[in-house]
């Protein structure tokens, strides 16, 4: 069955790179949705069901940590898996993301192979 993915990053460049890496890693999605921050992602999830979210942490308006908190508080979207794609790998803020339910991490910079390795567990 075709799936839907939501990519959350304030950088348009990074959103495009992530989308390309997903294709290079062999994942095919019915729809690739994009949001520039956590609030925009929540707004989007209110109207569209997705199978997985790939989210940056350090973003304006609403960062990835607050996005996880708000998502967890909403029973409708609480169960959607979120993988963090961030420069913050190995840091306390990433540990906080995992405690808030993030299911995996991909460190920037990344390769399509690393994307495949992490997302292969969930897709």
């Amino acid at each position, binding site marked *: 069955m075709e799936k839907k993915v939501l990519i959350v990053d304030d950088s348009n460049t990074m959103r495009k790179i992530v989308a390309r890496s997903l294709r290079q890693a062999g994942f095919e999605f019915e729809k690739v949705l994009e949001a520039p921050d956590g609030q925009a992602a929540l707004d989007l999830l209110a109207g569209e069901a997705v199978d997985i979210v790939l989210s940056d942490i350090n973003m304006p308006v609403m960062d990835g940590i607050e996005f996880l908190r708000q998502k967890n508080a909403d029973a409708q979207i609480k169960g959607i898996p979120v993988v963090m794609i961030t*420069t*913050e790998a190995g840091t306390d803020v990433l540990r906080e993301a995992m405690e808030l339910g993030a299911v995996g991490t991909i460190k920037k910079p990344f390769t399509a192979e690393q994307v495949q390795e992490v997302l292969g567990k969930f897709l």
Partner: protein
Amino acid sequence: MDLMNCISEATQEIFQSMLAFEVQPGAPLVERQKMFRDTVSGMVGMAGLYRGMLAIHVPNAIAKNITSTFLCIEVEDIDDDVKDAIGELANMLAGSVKSMLTDNGKDVKLAIPSAVCGREYEVECLADGDGVVVPFQLEGGEFLVECFLQK
């Protein structure tokens, strides 16, 4: 690991894995370059236990090539896509420096990346910070990565 090695390794890794570009670090500049011409500069501020700035200064032609490779499109002008791409390079570099500076990146926060461009502009930095400016060679020219910090 010292700042010079961290910047050198992180820059090579980012350019190799995200762009498939080979870049070679040169000897650090003796004196910081303030004035830039026909360049795009991506910058990330750092705050907390260390405060300062990491910046990457990329000549327009190389910045357009980087953006074109990132987005798989032809890039003719220095537009928001180019500034976003160079800002994201600064963001990835700052993340590497943050991880090096403190145990688990604790007590250092990164600002949202920003980018400037223009015919001629000046980039100021901490007057009393310690840091390094590293030139990198790649096909088509040279760019600079600098990081100045105060503890």
